[in-house]
């Protein structure tokens, strides 16, 4: 997700410091960003001049503290709390008092991440959606410690990037991941009860105007990925029944039937 966010940042006129743990990763990220920008121009979605500037707007580094020179830091590291806390602690110690520190976490507590920063009021969540250069939504998450100013800055930044920000409290799943849970969970329950089969449920849900049915969706994002999100939210809400995952999904993961990426999930995907 980091490269997508970096791409959006560059395309909206910013200079970007791109950090990862290894040179190979940052190089690869830059290549894919440039390729993606080119595609955007080809499809007429991106202005050619903007693209030229953007492609050269990157500085690559494997030294984390180099990022402290930025006005805004957007962190998109793996979803591990300790890792993110370390990053924010290190960066906030080096950064200026005015640096906005944003985390792209989708499932962790922004409050917990902010608590490790020297100035927690400078930390907010900025949750982008995949792929970041297409999806307009950014959930701006207000941690318990976030200052009003930090929140406003994040909202404005999202707008400047051409995104539509929504403002939410730091709660499990924020808005989108939480409210979407029944889409898949109810479908699994109906399947489990024998109410209808996979194709029928998908067809019925699509008839309501949804682009794809719940099982098609799970196969697309990864049955395991979807299960991980459901399990995380279930736990974060202290096992509230509403978010109860389903054993069918767990069995699918155990069997390695993860969807498109393994050639088979609820549907089969021939090569």
């Amino acid at each position: 997700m980091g490269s997508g966010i970096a791409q959006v940042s560059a395309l909206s006129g910013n200079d970007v410091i791109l950090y990862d743990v290894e040179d190979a990763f940052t190089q690869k990220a830059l290549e894919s960003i440039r390729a993606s920008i080119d595609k955007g121009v080809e499809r007429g979605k991106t202005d050619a001049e903007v693209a030229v500037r953007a492609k050269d707007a990157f500085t690559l580094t494997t030294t984390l503290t180099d990022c402290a020179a930025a006005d805004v830091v957007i962190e998109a590291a793996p979803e591990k709390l300790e890792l993110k806390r370390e990053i924010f602690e290190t960066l906030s110690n080096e950064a200026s008092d005015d640096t906005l520190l944003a985390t792209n976490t989708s499932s962790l507590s922004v409050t917990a991440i902010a608590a490790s920063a020297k100035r927690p009021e400078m930390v907010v969540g900025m949750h982008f959606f995949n792929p970041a250069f297409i999806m307009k939504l950014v959930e701006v998450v207000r941690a318990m410690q976030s200052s009003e100013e930090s929140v406003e800055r994040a909202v404005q930044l999202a707008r400047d990037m051409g995104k539509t920000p929504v403002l939410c409290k730091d709660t499990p799943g924020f808005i989108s991941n939480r409210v979407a849970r029944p889409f898949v969970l109810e479908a699994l329950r109906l399947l489990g009860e024998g109410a209808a089969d996979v194709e029928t449920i998908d067809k019925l849900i699509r008839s309501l105007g949804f682009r794809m049915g719940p099982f098609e969706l799970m196969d697309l994002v990864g049955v395991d990925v979807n299960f991980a999100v459901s399990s995380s939210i279930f736990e974060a809400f202290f096992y509230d029944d509403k978010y109860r995952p389903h054993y069918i999904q767990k069995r699918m993961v155990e069997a390695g039937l993860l969807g498109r990426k393994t050639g088979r999930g609820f549907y089969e995907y021939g090569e």
Partner: protein
Amino acid sequence: MKIILTGNSKLLPELTELVTQAGHDVSLFSDFHYLDKHRYDELDQAAAVADLAVDYSHMRHIPAMERVMVTLPIDKPYIVSPMVSSLTFMTHTEGYHVGHPERVVGWGALPPIASPEGKGIVEVARGLQTSDAAFDVAVEFWQSLGLETVEVADGPGLVRARVLCSLMNEAVSALADGVASADDIDAAMQLGNNYPQGLLAWADELGLDLVLAVLDGIHGETGDPKYRPHPLLKRKVWAGHLGKSSGRGFFEYETWGDPASSGA
């Protein structure tokens, strides 16, 4: 065929049109509350010669529906909608058992019946006692309207209403918990998850009383706390904020619907 159509949903006008266009004779009784004697006579006459009765209401004890059950000839199918309780439950209670449960068939749709993708789909379900004969007549009827039928198992809300109302319940929960504003919750689902509509605005369109009735039905029958309707949804309905038809739901609307047909 001669069809007698009863109910109290905004889905009925579209259904009436579909039935008429298909060449059937339809008598419509969408009266909400009690019927006066003149209407009862009209209904009795229509039911006595009907080939089929269809109902769509999400409340119990609708006078027209109960009356039809008594006056419709016993060999004619009665197609009802298990939106708020399963078909088997309905045929067990409500006095249906005196009306021959084997002739009762379930159907489900949400307004608009015609899908955005084109051909409308109707869910059809059998209760534990539904006869094959009645089921077959019902399927033929829906198909005669140019609708596709999909068989699903009996249960409150069938498939679509159950999934959709569960989603709406969660949106209400996020609102009530102060996670975000109603506008932002709706924007997030459309822009982040590509939902066709924001869930709160959609609930306002369906009618918050319908959404609550579906959830109450599932919760009541399953006893599973997962389906507990959110208190905010209940309060909105008690306060008469039923959505678009009453001028106010989670959002406010300029035009008021006809009070006599408030609710989905």
